């Protein structure tokens, strides 16, 4: 009870401060600029909640104040049951009221017709929520949490209930609300009035759904093209990934270490870079194209710009991911199964077809679905190589920024894309839940894997070696391309691109970052550095709750969080600009929207990593800490986090790197003030400035390799010192991690 009062006191204090000392509404110049302090509190835009009610005539806020004070009353009640009930009731009512008033009352007054007829027109509207309003909303959420805790929910652990409530609140605001707004946006006109025409005409649009190509017409709708491309990419990357995995684990291939290095590539490669490199090789003025022209007289054509080119780029990009997944699957097939098969008079060929391959099937299906989802979500490669044959993700982009702006069309396309990826995501879940022949068990499993049948061995080598060569050439192009003057026209070497992008001058004794790339480079670093710790924190907190706490609806909670990863970046981008462009929450054009986007897109990685690491910690450690008078916050801080250090570093680095390489969502959210490296590079590509684009890309890759290598050094050392409690289960965990990581 004493603790209960302490935390309520804090809430009441913060709540009162939110009503009195900070602007209730959004500050245009930015809250953290603190420029508003000089005009506070009597400026109409900057007034705090209390003055908004008293002086500005925003009387509806009285309800928020009343509900807040009602919750405060609980502080002075002694009966735990009634106290809890009152807190929950005022919290629920408060948060619902805050949401409704925010949505219903915008700049111009009522935005909904129903309350206007009920209460009459309003004389004054309201801008987007600011520090005051947001704090009060959070306090209502915490009222609910503390009320539930006092009623004994989650064994009365206020920290855990609070974390769950806040996480649900954040996921609602940053994932479900934007997606919902996008649905609504699809049936709204520019002025916000209900107009389903756009939706209807777009859904019936033949350019989306036409099946002309099947009946001899020239091309199919964009939805079918995307689906077809995704299936082909899934198949291609799975097959190649399997070949790589077989070579890496079942043969005496001499460069296995090099093969494994491949798995790092997709993490550090900005998504459009492969497309860019392909252009330099096979484009109209690419090296290979020109060579073929001069040697064989083959006319340069534009074959690369279309589905074929995108497909090659995607298979190149996603094969390493599929390799990473399948290497675990192939190693996971228990050698004793294969040995058993051989003692039962089956030769290598029969063993492979009847035992090894069927056991790998679920893993193969999983790899396919990952390739499928990745291809659907890929934005960079289609943008560079798509030409006029776009796919859904690029079409969405052009519906927003193109010559004919059509938000309704963008929303429709986004919904189609979303339904494709979510279907695949569900399929993946179903596949993984039932049919996993996990043959890595806790039991010691000795024995050697059966070698590959000769014919298969030859085939996979025949595929892997050239493809490896191809990959090396492509990445070589990326590094080399930045030093060539004008690709195809003037192949002389130069440092000019690097100089233009990254030059530093000294003017008047001061350092001047005069290169064109510095602005976006530093913004990228800044935002990546801000979002990485947040991502890791949110992800690990979620993992802690999922692994260590039991509560009703936990599965739904986990599913909702994981699902956010199956939402393509383009969809997130379009939904964020639709949702956060106007009250109640206005963030577009700020750094905040980029940070929010990264945190909620990359969080599932932190969650997966955290879950894997935390499952290895004996649960009695937490319980011991709890019985030693430490509450769960202290337990998390003093016991779990120190033991999870490697997982934390991994989550930090991964979210940092993802924030740098991400493009699909970012391209919608950048502004003149906050431009990110990737969107800047895409801009360069669109202007045909390949040299600088490539130079900038290699610079990014170099930065990320440095970061990852540094982190490997630190973490590798820690691993050695740590006692490995369940080493037998390790490989399996890693597979799970990588499978989800890319979904």
């Amino acid at each position, binding site marked *: 009870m004493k603790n209960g009062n302490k935390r309520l006191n804090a809430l009441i204090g913060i709540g009162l401060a939110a009503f009195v000392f900070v602007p209730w509404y959004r500050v245009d110049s930015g809250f953290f600029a603190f420029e508003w302090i000089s005009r506070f509190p009597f400026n109409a835009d900057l007034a705090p909640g209390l003055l908004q009610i008293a002086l500005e005539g925003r009387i509806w806020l009285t309800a928020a104040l009343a509900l807040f004070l009602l919750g405060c009353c609980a502080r002075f009640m002694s009966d735990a049951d009634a106290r809890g009930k009152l807190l929950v009731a005022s919290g629920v009512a408060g948060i619902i009221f805050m949401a409704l008033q925010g949505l219903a009352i915008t700049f111009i007054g009522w935005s909904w017709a129903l309350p206007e007829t009920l209460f009459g027109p309003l004389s004054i509207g309201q801008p987007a929520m600011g520090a005051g309003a947001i704090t009060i909303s959070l306090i209502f959420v915490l009222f609910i949490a503390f009320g539930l805790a006092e009623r004994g929910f989650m064994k009365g652990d206020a920290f855990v209930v609070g974390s769950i409530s806040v996480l649900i609140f954040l996921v609602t605001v940053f994932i479900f609300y934007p997606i919902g707004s996008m649905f609504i946006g699809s049936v709204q006109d520019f002025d916000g009035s209900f107009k389903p025409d756009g939706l209807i005409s777009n859904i019936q649009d033949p350019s989306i759904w036409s099946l002309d190509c099947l009946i001899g017409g020239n091309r199919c709708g964009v939805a079918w093209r995307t689906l077809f491309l995704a299936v082909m990419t899934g198949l291609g990357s799975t097959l190649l990934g399997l070949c790589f995995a077989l070579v890496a684990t079942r043969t005496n291939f001499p460069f296995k270490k090099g093969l494994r290095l491949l798995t790092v590539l997709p993490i550090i490669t900005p998504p459009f870079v492969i497309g860019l490199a392909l252009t330099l090789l096979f484009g109209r003025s690419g090296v290979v194209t020109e060579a073929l022209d001069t040697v064989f007289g083959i006319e340069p054509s534009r074959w690369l710009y279309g589905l074929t080119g995108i497909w090659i780029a995607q298979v190149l990009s996603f094969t390493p991911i599929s390799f990473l997944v399948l290497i675990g699957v192939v190693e996971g097939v228990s050698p004793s199964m294969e040995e058993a098969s051989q003692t039962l008079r089956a030769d290598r060929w029969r063993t492979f077809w009847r035992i090894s391959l069927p056991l790998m099937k679920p893993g193969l299906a999983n790899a396919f679905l990952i390739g499928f989802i990745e291809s659907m979500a890929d934005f960079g490669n289609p943008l560079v190589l798509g030409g006029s044959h776009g796919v859904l993700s690029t079409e969405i982009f052009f519906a927003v920024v193109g010559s004919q702006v059509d938000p309704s069309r963008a929303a429709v396309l986004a919904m189609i894309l979303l339904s494709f990826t979510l279907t695949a995501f569900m399929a993946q879940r179903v596949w993984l839940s039932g049919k996993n022949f996990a043959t890595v068990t806790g039991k010691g499993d000795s024995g050697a894997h059966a070698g590959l049948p000769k014919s298969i061995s030859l085939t996979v080598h025949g595929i892997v070696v050239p493809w490896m060569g191809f990959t090396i050439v492509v990445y070589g192009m990326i590094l080399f391309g930045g030093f060539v003057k004008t690709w195809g026209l003037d192949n002389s070497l130069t440092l000019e691109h690097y100089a233009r992008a990254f030059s530093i001058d000294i003017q008047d004794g001061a350092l001047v970052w005069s290169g064109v790339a510095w602005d976006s480079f530093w913004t990228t670093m800044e935002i990546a550095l801000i979002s990485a710790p947040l991502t890791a924190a949110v992800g690990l907190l979620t993992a802690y709750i999922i692994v260590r706490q039991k509560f009703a609806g936990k599965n739904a909670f986990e599913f909702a969080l994981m699902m956010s990863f199956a939402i393509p970046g383009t969809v997130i981008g379009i939904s964020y600009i639709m949702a956060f462009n106007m009250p109640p929450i206005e963030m577009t054009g700020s750094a905040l929207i980029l940070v929010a986007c990264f945190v909620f897109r990359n969080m599932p990685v932190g969650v997966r990593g955290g879950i894997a690491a935390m499952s290895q910690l004996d649960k009695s450690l937490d*319980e011991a800490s709890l*019985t030693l008078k430490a509450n769960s916050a202290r337990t998390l801080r003093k016991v779990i986090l120190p033991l999870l250090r490697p997982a934390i570093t991994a989550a930090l680095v991964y979210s940092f790197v993802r924030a740098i390489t991400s493009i699909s969502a970012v391209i919608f959210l950048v502004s003149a003030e906050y431009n990110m490296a990737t969107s800047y590079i895409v801009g360069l590509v669109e202007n045909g400035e390949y040299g600088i684009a490539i130079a900038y890309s290699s610079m990014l890759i170099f930065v990320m390799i440095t970061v990852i290598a540094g982190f490997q050094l630190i973490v590798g050392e820690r691993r050695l010192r740590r006692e490995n409690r369940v080493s037998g289960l390790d490989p399996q965990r890693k597979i799970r991690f990588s499978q989800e990581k890319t979904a």
Partner: protein
Amino acid sequence: MTDLKPGSVVFENIRKDFGAFTAIPDLSLTIEPGTLVTLLGPSGCGKTTTLRMLAGLEHPSSGRILIGGRDVTMTPAHERDVSMVFQSYALFPHMNALENVAYGLESSGYNKREVRERAEEGLAQVGLGGMGHRLPAELSGGQQQRVAVARALVLNPQVLLLDEPLSNLDARLRRKVRTEIRELQQRLGFTAVYVTHDQDEALAVSDRIVVMKEGKIAQEGAPRVLYEEPVSEFIADFMGEANVIPCEVLSREGDVALIDVGGLQHRLPARQSSAGKAKLAVRPGSVVLNPDAGGGLDGEILTSAYLGDHVEYEIETPVGTFFVIDHSVDRSLPAHTRVSLGFRNKGLALIES
């Protein structure tokens, strides 16, 4: 560890469900301050669940728990005045012994000097003074166990909970450590609740034993009572081995019953029995063997095994097969010897049939 304040424990109509499964249907139990009470039972009997509810690691579905007279039913673990020694010890691997012991003191808000003093005193109490700088991985099993006990005890809890504290030690060490725990408990006088599935351990350390079966209390009482006066076949069998055989109660005079076992007549405490058919539990050591004379229960030795300090026999009689332990090792009888069985005065009990 000076200002000890042993507390009582009361369970009032506790029920615990895990989803559709009811682990404990209705449990009421009182534990006197300053006593060591053992919860004993086969795995899955609900003893660990009971302990965890006392610690606050599980919350009961209904009912009340009182510690030291205060209702703690809804109190979270870290606000309860109990501490626990875990089966796996759960020593924090990244902290040394002293830091482990100090952890709870820090959480309780003692100042730094006090934390250090008390933690060192606690380690000294369990004979580990000067080992504070070692990491758990650098301590032996027995030492780790003692760090775990010290870590729990320095908080001066009203009740100390021990969850199978000896199960990770080898047999020889187990005997030593259980004596230490008992000695410590008697010296410091704290209330302790001890969970185990090993009846020897329970008999050795407890003031009182609570035997549980399927979430219910099967019998509770002093160790001697449980061993010598089991109320049911389950208890008789669980508290050391017992021969359970049919008998007939011939008559009852006050508290004494006269019974007939295959022609052999014997007097023993009547308990709840009445005249008619009944069941008798006989400890293997309570059977007397007479190789030559008759007048007892006739039997034939089926197997005979010499075990150093005693001989084990399986003996077939008209009322069933007896398992007998005989300490007169000089007179080891071979199989197929015909013997006559008699009963000692102790170690027999009429049980629920």
